[in-house]
């Protein structure tokens, strides 16, 4: 059985699309069994925006998405795939 976290995924998609220049290039893949893992791909030029200086933006995204996952009663990981 694979894990699902619809709220977290919705929040993640919202955050990423808000931050990037090319929302159409955003792709989120879900994997994992007991724990949802989101792998995020964005347009090349947007990677820096999503990560931020010293990973600050990426960490902020993780914090918010983890909070959202509490509604889904699950835990999640977010990976940004280069």
């Amino acid at each position: 059985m694979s894990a699902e976290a619809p709220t977290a995924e919705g929040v993640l998609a919202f955050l990423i699309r808000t931050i990037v220049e090319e929302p159409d290039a955003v792709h989120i893949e879900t994997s994992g069994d007991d724990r949802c893992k989101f792998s995020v791909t964005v347009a090349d030029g947007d990677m820096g925006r999503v990560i931020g200086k010293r990973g600050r933006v990426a960490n902020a995204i993780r914090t918010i998405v983890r909070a959202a996952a509490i509604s889904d009663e699950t835990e999640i990981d977010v990976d940004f795939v280069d």
Partner: protein
Amino acid sequence: MEWIETTGATVDDAKERALDRLGVAEDELEYEILAEASRSMLGLKKTDARLRARVRPRQSLPRVERRDRDRNRRGGGSRGGGRNGRNKGNSRGEGGKQESTGRGNRRKQDDGSQRPRKDADRSEKSGNGPNRGSGDRSSRRRRRGESPETVGDVGSGVESTGDDRADRGRNDRSPASAPKGVQMELETQSEIVEEFVAGLLDEMGLDARVVSTIQEDRLSVEAQGLNLGLAIGHRGETVRAITEIARTIVQRRSEGAAVGFLSVDVGGYRERRRTFLEEFARNQAEAVLGDGRARALEAMGSADRKVIHDTVSEIDGVETESEGSDRDRRVVIRPVAD
């Protein structure tokens, strides 16, 4: 924006000191190393590291032209006129005086009402930098769509923004950041941030109302509602994360030319935290005065430490200092040596 100079045994120490004094998070600090710490060849003489630091202005482009634009796009007439005076010395008048309304545009009465006097005083006492981290959020709320409150402070025909800067002394930005520009820019930012916060909380399945307050060069956006704990997080970590993203979005949409300082709150968390810290600081200071023994508080972020420094600086007989580095940095309250 005023520069301060700090010293420390290492550059990091000096930097931590600057963060404390300015009360900002690390990414908001701009600094230059004036001198590295050094030792003489025999290791006998030690020189401290020295730096020059300030709060990083969020505005990178001169916006002189904005001075002459009309700021009163919304709310019709809260901040008109004011071109005739950046009459700096004149701003500390007591609230309620209106004797100077005849001196210029009548609308100026509104100006000056939004100055957080308490804060200005506090920051003056502590001799600290721009009190970015300590805006008095409780005062003067302006909701979108309503006209700003009129409180008859003024006492001078001076424009509040410039006037407050002078008042606070250290908050002066470059002359290019005209007060009018600040106001306009923040209104645009507030739309962006409100939309973002409302959209985010909606995605999180939370029911909230989002309101903005603009006070001088500070934009506060707050999500209000019940059961917002999810969006606050452990010790406010989610609030901070939301703020971080909001700043990122504003910076991007404005192409780095956003002015002012943005703070995002959820469910009144920041305000509660501040009130809590102030009371905590006063209690601890009293305990120190009681038995004359210094107390080290728990480790805190720089904005929280600044609340402690500011609160304790108003109490006679005690002084504060930060010790430790990075995540372990904490405030020590100690009795003042006679």
